[in-house]
């Protein structure tokens, strides 16, 4: 099986390889580079398609290799009906999108970069759906957020694109962090670090008291990614991206990642009260909000974006239901949606590309100029509207069947779903019919039929949408049934076909179509009505996002101002206060104060040195000006150095001498440099508090040293070093051998710190020398402030 493992890994790497060679390919071949580049996802598609018979037979493939064995990390993948369907969608539609991008961005200066981003995204998305291990799942999840940021902001000259990219990144990336927390929690609860293990663990997760917390965290990740209300606003904004991106990320793949995750976890998390409450409610809300907003739009892409939001809502609603019919409906609808929505987005792109406008009110009569595009659009719209003979019809029938027998509040949900579907029907035909029929309207560009690179994608997807319905038996056997089995966690057979079964579902379908036709007919007044309602409602979550971000910035400013007031005095005071507290509080609390030693038996010369130190201190306290105080402090330091010398630490004493000398020199220099006033004029109260702080710190250290000398001394290390220092490090000076040999790496770190300190101090002095400089990054005149200084 090793060869299969290798091949699968290669298939996962193919998109990344494509990302590497894309810029060069575009440089040499221009926009026709799309043809060879499309081979990368096509090959991956073929590889994954090879698993179909195996999966259809009810097996699942679990494979991988050790990635970081010491951390127990495996790079593992799990292929079952669910992940395989997704992998095929991603690679298959990815192939078409690559071709489409070749035509769409023909002659664009950054086409190579665009291909790279698309491939990077494809690789991330593919990794996400086949990941077995939680950690790789999370890494790929965040990678899709990052690559979508790059793609949405591709047109980085425009502020709107930048804002949309940032918004998508903040919302989906933030959700990704929730997901990470959720995955870690699940790992904690069940002990399973990968999906296959979790699926084997069964109901342990549902019984856990932490289940609800894990569920909410996971839903946070899934809802942000799949643009569920109230996080739906980023998806329409993401339409700032070039159309191929919208077709790929915002209809077929990335936004489905949240739904994928919910479906994946359905067998272990689904079926509970919370699951069956939260998912349908949010899904239903999203469904309604999305379609109502879609009616109002006149821009083709925005209309489609809002219907995508509502489709995702419908998928979440169905997944939350948990009945067998609902699972089947979700599976069918997910595939149908990927096919028709990808096609419609590409059609919208073609219309935009050929006429120069996407405004539905300024388009008409294109059917003669673009017959092929029109045919593809119509086929896709039939599927989206849920009419036979398209695959969307099967999905709609199944949805109606599932809702008709829903257990909690069937009426409400049915009404919601029917209203949503009807509005979607109206929007579908508004997008697919309105620009093509009626009288010819003058457009900025003179329309022609698109080149093959452009029409290939929508035509293939539209044909697939029809064909899948025609050969539904075969299709279900290979795609739908295994996927439904994976979602529900037990074997399932989907048997729905184009032959309508009379009864409730058909009646509901008919009702849906009826309302849809009505809305389509009255589209203009419906749009007007929606505009009025929205004006009444006031600002939506999009404004909320802006408010949130600016609030965050204000908060961080306030926190910085509080923690970093910029006055040295405050920093020093706080530091020493903490030091004193750390030294004094624990011994007092735990009653570990040292015993007071008996009067020491001092030699006369030791006493003399002690006296010198005390005199030095007295001189410091009584000094008239600062320079005298600094020099007097040196006296005390020298006295301590002499004590070190007397008690057998020549190295230490030597260093102490040098440090004292240099400190006095540098402090004196700083004083003159900063032009401090020579006299010390602190108010008496401040003097007292500073003195108290100094005494507390000194006392703390004194007590600590006393305590240390009173403890029984452990000589293990001393013995070790004195024994081995000569033996293996060839040095007699133990202290130094420790510094440069035994603990050399520490010293390396320390001298790096010394170097950096030198650099930093130099920079600070330079800045001062340059007069009053503003170094705030958000200063408008930062340009001139940062001018290079001439030495």
């Amino acid at each position, binding site marked *: 099986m090793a060869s299969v493992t290798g091949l699968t890994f290669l298939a996962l790497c193919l998109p990344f390889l494509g990302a590497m060679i894309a810029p060069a390919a575009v440089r040499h071949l221009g926009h026709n580079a799309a043809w060879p580049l499309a081979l990368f996802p096509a090959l991956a598609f073929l590889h994954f398609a090879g698993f179909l018979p195996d999966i259809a037979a009810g097996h699942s493939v679990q494979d991988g290799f050790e990635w970081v064995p010491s951390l127990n990390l495996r790079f593992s993948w799990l292929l079952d009906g669910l992940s395989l369907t997704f992998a095929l969608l991603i690679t298959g539609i990815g192939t078409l999108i690559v071709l489409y991008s070749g035509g769409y961005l023909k002659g664009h200066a950054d086409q190579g970069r665009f291909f790279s981003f698309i491939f990077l995204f494809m690789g991330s998305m593919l990794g996400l759906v086949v990941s077995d291990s939680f950690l790789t799942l999370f890494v790929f999840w965040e990678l899709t957020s990052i690559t979508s940021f790059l793609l949405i902001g591709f047109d980085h000259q425009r502020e709107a694109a930048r804002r949309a990219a940032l918004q998508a990144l903040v919302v989906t990336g933030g959700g990704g962090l929730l997901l990470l927390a959720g995955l870690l929690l699940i790992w904690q609860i069940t002990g399973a670090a990968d999906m296959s293990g979790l699926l084997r663990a069964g109901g342990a997760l549902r019984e856990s008291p932490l289940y609800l917390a894990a569920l909410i965290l996971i839903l946070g990740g899934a809802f942000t990614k799949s643009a569920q209300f109230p996080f739906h606003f980023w998806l329409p904004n993401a339409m700032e991206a070039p159309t191929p991106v919208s077709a790929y990320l915002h209809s077929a793949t990335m936004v489905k990642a949240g739904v994928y995750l919910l479906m994946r976890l359905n067998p272990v998390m689904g079926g509970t009260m919370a699951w069956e409450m939260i998912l349908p409610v949010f899904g239903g809300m999203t469904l309604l909000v999305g379609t109502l907003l879609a009616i109002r739009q006149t821009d083709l892409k925005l209309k489609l974006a809002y219907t995508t939001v509502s489709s995702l809502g419908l998928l979440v609603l169905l997944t939350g239901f948990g009945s067998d019919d609902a699972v089947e409906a979700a599976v069918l609808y997910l595939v149908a949606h990927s096919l028709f929505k990808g096609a419609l987005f590409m059609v919208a792109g073609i219309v935009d590309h050929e006429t120069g406008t996407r405004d539905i009110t300024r388009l008409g009569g294109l059917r003669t100029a673009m017959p092929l595009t029109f045919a593809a659009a119509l086929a896709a719209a039939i599927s989206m509207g849920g009419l036979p003979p398209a695959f969307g019809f099967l999905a709609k029938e199944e949805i109606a069947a599932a809702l008709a027998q829903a257990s909690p509040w069937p009426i409400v949900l049915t009404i919601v779903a029917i209203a949503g579907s009807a509005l979607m029907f109206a929007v579908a035909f508004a997008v697919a019919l309105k620009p093509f029929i009626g009288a010819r309207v003058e457009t900025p560009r003179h329309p022609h039929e698109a080149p093959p690179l452009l029409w290939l994608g929508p035509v293939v997807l539209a044909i697939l949408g029809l064909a899948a319905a025609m050969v539904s038996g075969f299709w279900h056997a290979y795609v739908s049934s295994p996927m439904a089995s994976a979602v529900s966690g037990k074997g399932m057979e989907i048997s729905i076909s184009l032959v309508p079964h009379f009864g409730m579902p058909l009646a509901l379908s008919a009702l849906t179509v009826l309302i849809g036709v009505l809305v389509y007919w009255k589209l203009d007044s419906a749009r007007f009505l929606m505009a009025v309602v929205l004006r009444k409602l006031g600002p939506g979550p999009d404004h909320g996002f802006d408010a949130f971000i600016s609030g965050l910035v204000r908060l961080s400013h306030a926190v910085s101002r509080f923690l970093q007031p910029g006055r040295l005095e405050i920093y020093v005071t706080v530091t020493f206060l903490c030091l004193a507290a750390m030294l004094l509080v624990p011994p007092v609390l735990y009653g570990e104060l040292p015993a007071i030693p008996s009067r020491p038996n001092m030699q006369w010369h030791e006493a003399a040195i002690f006296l010198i130190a005390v005199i030095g201190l007295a001189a410091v306290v009584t000094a008239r000006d600062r320079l005298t105080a600094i020099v007097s402090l040196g006296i005390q330091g020298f006295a301590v150095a002499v004590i070190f010398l007397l008690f057998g630490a*020549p*190295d230490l004493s*030597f*260093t102490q001498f*040098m*440090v004292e*000398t*240099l400190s006095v*020199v*540098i402090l004196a*220099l*700083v004083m003159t*440099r900063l032009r401090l006033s020579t006299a010390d004029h602190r108010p008496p109260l401040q003097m007292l508090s500073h003195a108290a702080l100094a005494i507390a710190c000194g006392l703390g250290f004194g007590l600590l040293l006393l305590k240390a000398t009173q403890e029984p001394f452990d000589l293990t290390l001393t013995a070790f070093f004195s024994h081995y220092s000569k033996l293996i*490090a*060839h*040095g*007699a*000076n133990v202290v*130094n*051998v420790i*510094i*440069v*040999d035994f603990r*050399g*790496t520490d*010293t*390396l770190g320390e*001298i*790096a710190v*010394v*170097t950096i*300190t*030198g*650099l930093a*101090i*130099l920079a600070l*002095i*330079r800045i001062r*020398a*340059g007069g009053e400089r503003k170094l705030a990054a958000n200063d408008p005149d930062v340009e001139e402030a940062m001018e290079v*200084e001439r030495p």
Partner: protein
Amino acid sequence: MNTVIFRTAAPFLTALMLLFSVFVLLRGHNEPGGGFIGGLVAASALAIYGIACGVTAVRRAIIFHPLAIAGFGLLASTVAGLLSVFSGVPFMTGLWIYPHLFGVEVPLSSVMLFDAGVYLVVVGAITSIALALEEREVE
């Protein structure tokens, strides 16, 4: 600090101290001394020279920018640690060779190179701080 005596004596004093600092650096393995102390002595020497003869004189005397000296020291220490790669022992393992120069056995080691690096870092960092502080407003 601008007495004639001091200005005349300072260069000699500095030269002596620098010589002494190298001596302290080299004896550090067996006697009190070593890179850190040696560096401090050398930095004091340069500080004295700077106080007597001005910053420009010191900059001329040490040729390189003091921070470049510190950076070179850091590099030397790192290289001393990395030498162990070539003999297949862990990072920072001390390596010794005993070549005979003029009939005298001279023990050389990666540890010594490391210590010399420490010396240079201390000299460079402290001198650069002291010089920057001593410099009056930009020349």
